[in-house]
């Protein structure tokens, strides 16, 4: 049908009155899609029929409005009351469950936090202990290394000869030409001023003394010093803090010969 035929068919009027079969309704809705201008026709028909209904209105029975409003209110409050009651009950139940779960979560959280803190603290202790162990291990390895060096078969233990001005000097040189390492074992050293240190020297024939290790009194009585190949004699002097390039001969406290070793 074209639009004029649709308009004259009476289908639109019956569509508004709802007197069409489902198939006819679908047909009209198809026309409304194909011819959007028919929607204005539809609106005019609706307005006309609404006018008829308004004109033919009959006063609704008195009290009906209150009845309907009450029913809506009752349904709503019933629904609400019901749902409210159930809601309250379910709220009560779910509230209790939620409270229990919440409390449980809080407790668990608290313990987790505590546990986490404890774990963290234990981790810190562990790290400190590990550092301490590392330091101890390092110290022990050092001591072990010293022990190995000092007990090495080729190790020579040579006493320093104290000079007359420093007769109290009591030192030993642990000397090893194989490992090329030297240690001074301190049994006694003269006292130092705050601005002084001991300094080891290498004495070789026809050469100026070569400055070697500068050291203070070792706390553990043993100190590794430089091994200088070709040295005939090692000498120790008291020098200003930090050492010097040439020895202060009047401060010579002792010597030890390694010639021929």
């Amino acid at each position, binding site marked *: 049908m074209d639009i004029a035929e649709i308009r004259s068919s009476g289908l639109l*009027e019956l569509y508004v009155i709802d007197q069409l079969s489902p198939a006819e309704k679908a047909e009209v809705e198809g026309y409304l899609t194909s011819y959007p201008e028919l929607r204005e026709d539809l609106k005019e028909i*609706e*307005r006309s029929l609404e*006018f008829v*209904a308004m*004109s*033919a209105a009959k006063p609704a*029975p008195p009290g009906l*409005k209150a009845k309907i409003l009450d*029913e809506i209110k009752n349904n709503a409050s019933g629904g609400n009351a019901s749902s409210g009651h159930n809601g309250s009950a379910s709220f009560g139940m779910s509230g209790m469950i939620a409270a229990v779960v919440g409390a449980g979560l809080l407790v668990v959280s608290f313990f987790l936090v505590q546990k986490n803190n404890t774990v963290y603290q234990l981790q810190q202790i562990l790290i400190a202990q590990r550092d301490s162990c590392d330091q101890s291990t390092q110290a022990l390895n050092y001591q072990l290394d010293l022990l190995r060096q000092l007990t090495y078969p080729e190790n020579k233990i040579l006493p320093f000869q104290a000079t007359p001005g420093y007769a109290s000097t009591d030192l030993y040189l642990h000397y090893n030409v194989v490992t090329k390492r030297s240690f001074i074992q301190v049994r006694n050293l003269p006292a130092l001023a705050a601005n002084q240190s001991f300094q080891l020297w290498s004495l070789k024939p026809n050469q100026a003394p070569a400055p070697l290790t500068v050291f203070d009194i070792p706390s553990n009585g043993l100190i590794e010093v430089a091994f200088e190949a070709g040295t005939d004699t090692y000498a120790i002097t008291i020098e200003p803090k930090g050492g010097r390039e040439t020895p202060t001969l009047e401060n010579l406290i002792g010597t030890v010969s390694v010639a021929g070793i």
Partner: protein
Amino acid sequence: MSLLYDRYADSLFGVVSRILGDDQIAEDILQKTMLKIWNGIDGFDSSKASFFTWMSVIARNTALDQKRLKTFQDRQKTISVDEIVYRPMISTPEGTSIDAAALLSKLDTNYRLVLEYAYLKGYTQQEISETLDMPLGTVKTRLRAAIGMLRDVLKEEKQYFLGGPGLRSILLMIKWI
């Protein structure tokens, strides 16, 4: 609901009471109708029909469902159908009035009768044809012509009709407040 009722209850009651011919039962049906409307506002689709059309279809179908019940038909035998009396004036939302009686008087009685049977009493065209002893083609023609005449007259009265998605939104808002 109060707004909805104040504005439409009388018109819908006019429809359902004329379909049923029994004001007592019509009261119950109007109550059912208003509750269906109230509860079904979410389902109103303004792209398919105006709000009043949607409501009047609910009212008519609810009334026709009642009319089809055998218990109702047995009761109906003893009840007479009233004559349709049109309101002389209809107030618009803007405060103006439409002289409905004068306007409807412009319709030929035969045309108006078909319209009343089809729209206000819920008769099908076939039923109108049988009841008024009128050829079906004539019923169709008169129905369309009656509505066409009203359309022409009411084209200038568009402001009278409140509807569309805006109304639905207002009602939904009122409903859920």
